[in-house]
């Protein structure tokens, strides 16, 4: 008996639906008070509501987003809507880059890598160190030598930071997760929380509790284009371009290379992959490397765009990005990309409508709602079919 029948992550599947009915019946049979007609009516209404939300979740969400965009348009006009769309895309690109790491790791070993957000924050500090090391050579290269110098500086920072972050991710997997791969599901999740706190504690000790300004925010300056009164800066275009480029590169990698094939195979069935001669440990390591490297790229563009980094930045950003991964269907790389942009839109427009202090609560509410009603996300693969 496998436990996926009992506790389906995809309660959205029909199998989950029949299960709901059985549970409801047994509940009525057991508790004496629930036999009254009113209670049965209430249960029926609740179940209807549940099925409704479960089935029409994507529609509700998309209509909600469209309505909020319209509301912003009616309240602030085209300028506000344009500006907020720009902000949402920039933020969404960063969320997407982090979300891919979550979704890849979950797809391959079914672990919610809680430390992933902190790897993101740590990568911001890596980028800070690499940018200012060598006597500030990279930094001065990027600011003082025209276009060629800037490109060279960016390439150095990106490659070095992504490599270091990738190895950090691999090390975390090796030390904290690999031994628990066959343990009960909650054990690696608890170590992941431990790793998260370890990383946060390390950053707190090293860099203190305050915001740390990153010096690379002056690298890319100036406005690119302006539509009416909405101006788009070069660095904002850069963020989105980097995110899209890396996502397409990753897609090609997973689709076309040997290692990518091994990843897909391992995600589908680890034991079968093992039987086919795939080195599962190496594949999982590679997954962690790629996920962490993408988070590092996200951290660099974050620091270029916002100019700040903080020791506990990764925690909330991590949860938001995880929401994006779940929204896109966990295990689905393309879905994580799209989910990232959607969450960016929800964050920015929801914050505009309800007040900025509500953005995060809104995202967490969405997280709870998706996981409760539709754990497969918008375009998720059915995780329950996997052993």
């Amino acid at each position, binding site marked *: 008996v496998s436990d996926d029948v009992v506790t389906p992550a995809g309660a959205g599947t029909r199998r989950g639906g029949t299960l709901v009915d059985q549970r409801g019946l047994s509940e009525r049979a057991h508790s004496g008070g629930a036999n009254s007609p009113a209670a049965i009516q209430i249960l029926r209404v609740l179940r209807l509501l549940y099925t409704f939300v479960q089935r029409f979740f994507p529609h509700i969400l998309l209509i909600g987003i469209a309505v909020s965009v319209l509301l912003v348009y009616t309240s602030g006009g085209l300028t506000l809507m344009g500006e907020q769309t720009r902000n949402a895309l920039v933020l969404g690109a960063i969320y997407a880059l982090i979300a891919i790491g979550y979704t890849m790791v979950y797809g391959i070993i079914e672990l919610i890598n809680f430390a992933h957000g902190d790897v993101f924050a740590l990568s911001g500090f890596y980028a800070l160190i690499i940018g200012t090391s060598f006597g500030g050579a990279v930094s001065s290269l990027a600011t003082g030598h025209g276009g060629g110098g800037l490109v060279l500086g960016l390439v150095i920072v990106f490659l070095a930071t992504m490599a270091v972050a990738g190895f950090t991710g691999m090390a975390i997997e090796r030390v904290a997760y690999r031994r628990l791969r066959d343990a009960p599901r909650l054990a690696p999740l*608890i170590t992941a929380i431990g*790793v998260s*706190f370890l990383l946060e504690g390390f950053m707190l000790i090293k860099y203190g509790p305050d915001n740390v300004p990153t010096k690379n925010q002056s690298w890319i300056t100036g406005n690119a284009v302006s539509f009416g009164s909405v101006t788009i800066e070069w660095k904002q275009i850069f963020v989105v371009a980097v995110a899209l480029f890396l996502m397409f590169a990753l897609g090609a990698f997973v689709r076309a290379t040997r290692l990518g094939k091994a990843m897909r195979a391992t995600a589908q069935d680890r034991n079968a992959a093992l039987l086919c001669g795939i080195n599962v440990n190496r594949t999982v390591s590679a997954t962690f490397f790629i996920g962490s490297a993408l988070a590092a790229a996200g951290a660099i563009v974050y620091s270029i765009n916002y100019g700040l980094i903080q020791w506990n930045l990764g925690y909330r950003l991590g*949860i938001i990005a995880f929401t994006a991964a779940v929204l896109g269907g966990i295990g689905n790389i393309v879905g994580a990309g799209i989910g990232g942009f959607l969450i960016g839109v929800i964050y920015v427009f929801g914050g505009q409508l309800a007040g900025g202090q509500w953005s995060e609560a809104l995202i967490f509410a969405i997280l709870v709602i998706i996981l409760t009603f539709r754990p497969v996300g918008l375009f998720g693969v059915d995780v329950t079919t996997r*052993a």
Partner: protein
Amino acid sequence: VPRLGLSLLGFRKGSQDAPRPRGAGTSTFWILALAAATLLLMGWLLPWFVEPFSAGVGFSPMDVIAGGPVSIGSILVYLLGLAMLVVLLSPAAELRARVRKRPIDPRWDRIRLYVVAAGLVLTIVIFLLYRVIQEEPLFGPVDSATITDSAVWLTMVGYIVAGLAYGARSWVTNHPNAAFAGVALPFAALIPLMFHQAPDFVFWAASSLAIYTLLALGLNVVVGFAGLLDLGYAAFFAIGAYTCAALSSPKYGLHLPLWTLIFIGAAVASMFGAVLGAPTLRLRGDYLAIVTLGFGEIIPDLATNNVGNLTNGPDGISSIDQPHFHLLGLDVNFATSPAWYYLALLVLVVVVIILLRNLEHSRVGRAWIAIREDEVAAAATGINTTSTKLLAFAIGASVSGLAGAFYGSMVGIVSPEAFSFSVSVAVLSIVVLGGIGNIIGVILGSFVLTFVIFWVLPGLNEWSTTVSKTVGVPALGNIDFTRYTYIVYGVALIGMMLLRPGGLLPSRARRVELESATESESLAAVQGRA
């Protein structure tokens, strides 16, 4: 509900408790022996460390050296040291014999017991002698000799523990819980006596320890008994605290007494526990964890955003009442003396432990364990999984709400940042460290972790400042060890999960599981689910 009440009071135990496996309590002996050694060492070393910095004069090793080897007091102290040495070294000797698989001479048990008894008598004699010399009243508070007193108390408790470990060995092995209660309760009650002249912070630290113990006991119901990982546990703590704050502060002009508030706080929190638990019931373990995490973030967010003007936003609700009444002619004022909080919390912790133990061994407790082990099988045996899981959430939350109400009254101000994710993780670390599903283990875990967080880390700060001044390395003094809190949680979680998944004191069932893990692993490999 009436059935649950009977379970809580221990009337619905049933007779299906598995017989205790032979030798199950030997680890209790080792823990007692180690505890005795630690207490004796602490009692012995405390004057060494603290006496040079304080004005008090006590029977520290310093005095023995300074007073010359001839005085009666110093001879007694030497004897005491000898007795301590025997107690300290004997577990090592026993371990050595055990490792070499040689039988231990049974005479040793008796000799050790005599030595322990002699040590206890010696300690008391020295204590009384010292009081006579200092011209202080024999019992009761003194003005000067705090450190010495605490050292003496620690030594006495140490000898009593050692006596339990060595003398009543077979009894301890058969009644580990009674032995634990017999040691822990007097020790916990003695803390105020030991430090009767100490500043208030001792009581604050001890009360925080008690509050963390309550939280961990509650989380243990959810995570340990029912196997549902709750990462938003601080939310219920917050709900209890805000309930207390709203009902006993100038905010609404209501001033309910704390004794009713803890019940109201527990009731409100358990209601929220059931409501927030309901949507998660069908979810798989890790998804459930994330949903609870989401709730745990939303609730402080709601408090920060001051929904319905209930919470005063980021400022929080302040000037919460503190109990003040007269009992038997005694002026009991919680505001001026935090010792009352400690004592009240101690009573509360004991009551909660008794109730939860009863629940664990009742029908409900067995249902939780059945669900934790295999939900399908549990449902097939007729357990209503929905209501059983909800009950776990509700009871876990109610303990948290209880702790929250007390916390609100104790601290006097309740604001959202006190209920962040790190609180949930701290409580989770306690449970994981102590032993998931084992009440005694959880208490031990809370003691160890709060000791490290509230005593060792700040102590290291002072120590490093002093050392850096004497050695002349300013960098050492600049290290803020209190920032290592997160590292401590992280190391506790990772280390325990990797090295000792059952925790410091694994529960009996968990130990059996771990021992038979190799069997089930091979089974899983056969089934292709590894």
